[in-house]
């Protein structure tokens, strides 16, 4: 025990700051004795830490100084609470309005908060997320200036990267697919089936349950199941080493492991994880055939920028003389879900939408706070006497300030408790609306609790502080003399807050109307094809041989008009090809989108041929003569225009699609939207190819849909027993293109509705107070001969004026902001004046109705009752 070892001074200081004086001597002695006895047995540090521990353990009621336990503030606090509760109780109407407003506002914020938390939590469970990148392929063809980018890469990329760049620790290729899995003898299409390299386990998070991760995906036809997939196919037996049959030919896959269900807040998710080599695709041949996603784990996050440079140089030498340029961009993994223009396996969410939601939540809170401020300042005359008496008795300004803050805090805390209940009730519906799986337990996470607490405190301060300042500033002499009136400045503040509230509501309503307009436009615009009453049935290549039989059998039913086989439905055509015509200069090409179809496609989908003719059965046969094939093409208007032809001039011209498809242009169709309306219409080629398959389109009559569908199902089961029967309607596919927009639309409508209701509730409360204060004026006007209508007009007019000002302010703001949202669409509605006029009218009518309640009630009053008591 050296002379320098003394108990830590700060701990001692802390101890004396709270310890009762009469205990000081014995406690200090005890702790010191403990400290020195510790020093003999343990290290200096341990002894010191233990001293701290002992000091903190003296924070017990019995040892605390009286002034801490029974400080005067505590009594004041108690008294403030009591007064707060009593005052809230006495003014039931405004308390109810505030409570309702705050609860609705806070519930909205909690829901938005849950949504945001879920979106921000995407991929955060991946430990390597900072070091992982996704490769984006950037490519163009010689002779074309167009550069394209996409989240797809070829099989060659991952092995090349691992071999070439020492910065790469691991690379994994992944792709997802719908795979038919046989459960006993029932084929089930599993959509959550994913193929990945065994390096998946080096790069990504997983929680292993059975089997051995290190070799689970080595070799072809190995599959790892998640717990729920294992349960579904094998029940409670261990699936290890067992076999799953997949596909129409019942390919066996060996189950080599079971892992925990993959988190849902991930950019990829699956129930089956099969080895990448099962796909049997060529490993090294080409940079084209880019159908897979490649993720790369870097050794060090700082390698990203230098590696990007190396990749660019490397790829430009690799591609020399190949007629195309390809480069790979490294995209940080944790940026993908919210920031990337390229989708993950799970659809991305645009960060803009999250900002919009945040702003909406904030605006709703503002409305609620303003209502509180307005109602409490409007009531200030009633509270003035209380303030005066308190001041005379000796309360100082700050005590009064905290008393009024106390009131708003009580209200806020009550509302947040109610809100949690509301959220519990509303969450399932909100989930339906947003197609999320938000769960209540996210509400108890520390981040969420802290932010809820902070929001509550901020709202109490924000809403409470202005009334608190005003009320605590009253001069007792003036108040108690009884000649006290609402100040002019107070009125001005009330008016500007009302204007502000209605600016917010009008803004939200205008935005919602325009968003809904655009959505209506998207859903009802003539897209150039018919999407009603068309069934989409996914098909297999094995079905190509039986196709004529299948078509004939289906068409035997008079309800079925046409049956067409194609690769892509007209809703979304993605296949990128290059084309050439004889007239084009050597070595130039035109990049186009192309879709293999059959002779019934145009009829089935109602495309309009504006020049030339549709494909014939003979055309189809021409395309299937091995080396002697001649192809037939139908262009869209844009393609003809791009090539410099009028639709008529294009007919009969020769062209090549890709390298090996020579043929003749037979027809031109009117432009139709084969991508979402965010994109403008690109050049498109429809061509005859016997081997193209993917979907069967069945156009049916609208008369008896269910029985027609069951007829198709019956035929399918009979003719195609090896592939499950599944169908979608084409218009559902179409709506899926705009899923995030449609969601935004519904969410905006919901919250805009909430905003206007809250603003009106505030207006209702305030108007009732102000009308109350003007009762004498009303009575005198009546005595002098004013009619009920005159009085109602006078009283309502002053409010409507404010709402009008608000609308005038809100419209340009909404115009500017919504214009930016609309810019994302290549095809959009014009914002016409009537949209704004309609929104304005809606707001005025709603507010007029709200105010009229009170003013008409006041106008009916018998003047004698108010005037007799002066």
């Amino acid at each position, binding site marked *: 025990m050296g002379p320098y070892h003394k108990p830590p001074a700060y701990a001692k200081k802390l101890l004396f700051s709270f310890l009762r004086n009469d*205990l000081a*001597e*014995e*406690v*200090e*002695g*005890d*702790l*010191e*004795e*403990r400290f020195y*006895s510790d020093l003999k047995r343990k290290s200096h540090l341990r002894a010191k830490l233990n001293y701290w*521990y*002992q000091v903190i*353990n*003296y*924070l*017990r009621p*019995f*040892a605390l100084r009286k002034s801490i336990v029974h400080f005067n503030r505590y009594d004041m606090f108690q008294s403030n609470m009591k007064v707060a509760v009593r005052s809230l109780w006495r003014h039931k109407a405004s308390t109810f309005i505030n409570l309702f407003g705050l609860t609705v506002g806070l519930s909205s914020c909690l829901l938005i908060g849950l949504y945001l938390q879920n979106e921000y939590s995407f991929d955060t469970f991946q430990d390597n997320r900072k070091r992982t990148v996704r490769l984006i392929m950037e490519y163009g063809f010689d002779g074309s200036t167009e550069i394209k980018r996409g989240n797809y890469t070829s099989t060659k990329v991952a092995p090349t990267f691992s071999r070439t760049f020492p910065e790469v620790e691991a690379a994994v290729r992944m792709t997802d697919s719908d795979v038919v899995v046989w459960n006993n003898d029932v084929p089930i299409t599993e959509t959550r089936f994913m193929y990945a390299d065994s390096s998946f386990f080096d790069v990504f998070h997983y929680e292993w349950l059975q089997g051995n991760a290190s070799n689970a995906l080595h070799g072809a036809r190995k599959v790892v199941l998640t717990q729920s997939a294992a349960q579904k196919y094998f029940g409670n037996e261990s699936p290890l080493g067992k076999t799953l049959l997949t596909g129409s030919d019942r390919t066996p896959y060996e189950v080599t492991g079971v892992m925990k269900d993959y988190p849902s807040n991930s950019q990829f998710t699956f129930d089956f994880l099969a080895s990448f080599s099962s796909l049997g695709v060529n490993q090294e041949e080409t940079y084209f055939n880019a159908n897979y996603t490649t993720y790369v784990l870097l050794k060090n996050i700082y390698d990203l920028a230098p590696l990007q440079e190396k990749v660019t140089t490397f790829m430009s030498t690799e591609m020399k003389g190949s007629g195309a340029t390809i480069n790979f961009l490294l995209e940080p993994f944790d940026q993908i879900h919210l920031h990337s223009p390229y989708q993950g396996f799970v659809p991305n969410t645009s960060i803009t939408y999250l900002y919009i939601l945040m702003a909406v939540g904030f605006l709703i809170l503002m409305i609620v706070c303003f209502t509180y401020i307005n109602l409490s300042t409007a009531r200030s005359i009633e509270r003035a006497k209380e303030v005066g008496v308190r001041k005379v008795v000796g309360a100082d300004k700050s005590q009064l300030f905290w008393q009024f803050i106390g009131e708003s805090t009580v209200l806020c805390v009550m509302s947040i408790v109610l809100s949690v209940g509301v959220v519990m009730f509303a969450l399932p519906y909100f989930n339906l609306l947003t197609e999320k799986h938000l769960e209540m337990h996210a509400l108890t996470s520390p981040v969420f609790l802290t932010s809820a607490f902070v929001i509550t405190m901020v709202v109490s301060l924000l809403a409470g502080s202005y009334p608190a300042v005003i009320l605590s500033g009253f001069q007792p002499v003036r108040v108690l003399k009884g000649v006290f009136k609402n100040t002019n400045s107070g009125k001005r503040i009330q008016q500007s807050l009302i204007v502000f509230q209605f600016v917010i509501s009008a803004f939200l309503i205008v935005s919602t109307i325009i968003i809904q307009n655009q959505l209506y436009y998207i859903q009802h615009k003539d897209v150039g094809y018919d999407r009603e009453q068309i069934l989409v049935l996914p098909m297999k290549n094995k079905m190509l041989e039986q196709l004529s039989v299948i078509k004939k059998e289906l068409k035997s039913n008079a309800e079925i008009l046409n049956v067409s086989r194609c690769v892509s439905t007209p809703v979304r055509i993605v296949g990128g090809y290059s084309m050439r015509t004889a007239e084009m200069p050597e070595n130039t090409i035109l990049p186009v989108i192309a879709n293999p179809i059959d002779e019934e496609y145009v009829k089935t989908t109602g495309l309009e041929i504006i020049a030339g003719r549709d494909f014939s059965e003979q055309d189809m046969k021409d395309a299937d003569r091995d080396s002697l094939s001649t192809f037939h093409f139908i262009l869209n208007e844009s393609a003809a225009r791009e090539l410099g032809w009028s639709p008529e001039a294009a007919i009969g011209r020769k062209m090549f699609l890709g390298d090996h498809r020579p043929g003749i242009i037979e027809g031109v169709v009117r432009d139709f939207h084969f991508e979402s309306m965010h994109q403008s219409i690109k050049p498109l080629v429809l061509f005859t190819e016997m081997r193209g398959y993917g979907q069967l389109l069945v156009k049916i009559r609208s008369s008896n849909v269910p029985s027609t569908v069951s007829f198709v199902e019956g035929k399918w089961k009979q003719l195609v027993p090896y592939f499950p029967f599944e169908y979608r309607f084409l218009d559902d596919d179409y709506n899926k293109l705009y899923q995030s927009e449609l969601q935004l639309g519904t969410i905006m409508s919901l919250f805009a509705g909430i905003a206007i209701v809250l603003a009106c509730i505030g207006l209702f409360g305030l108007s009732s107070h102000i009308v109350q204060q003007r009762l004498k004026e009303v009575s005198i006007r009546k005595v002098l001969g004013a009619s009920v209508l005159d009085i109602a007009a006078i009283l309502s007019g002053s409010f409507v004026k404010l709402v009008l000002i608000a609308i005038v302010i809100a419209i340009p703001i909404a115009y500017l902001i919504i214009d930016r949202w609309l810019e994302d669409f290549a095809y959009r509605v014009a914002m016409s004046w009537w949209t704004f006029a309609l929104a304005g009218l809606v707001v005025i009518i709603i507010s007029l109705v709200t105010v009229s309640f009170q003013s008409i009630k006041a106008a009916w009053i018998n003047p004698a009752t108010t005037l007799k008591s002066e």
Partner: protein
Amino acid sequence: MIETRLGEFEEVILLLAGILGEEAYAFKIADEFEAQTNRAVSIGAVHSTLTRLEEKGFLESEMGESTAERGGRRKRIYTITAYGQKTLKASRDFKVSLWNQFPGFATIKLIVD
């Protein structure tokens, strides 16, 4: 049920105070508790319990003589009261009677004074 108003931890502390006699002050009791039970306990927790026991009348306390070893600071020495003794005994008798009714152990003769 015999009302002893004595929790388990309280009972142990009370017993230790009795065992330590002249040396029964918060630090020593906490030290002894740790030594006998192998459980960590803070002096504050023991002190708090001692205070409560005193309030209940099981203990009395008095400041002791000042000694050099703790910088001349005095200790508060706790002594068990007659009521405390009685309560301890009642608590033990109650448990013994329970043990005697317990089928697996009823044959074992417990020494009771």
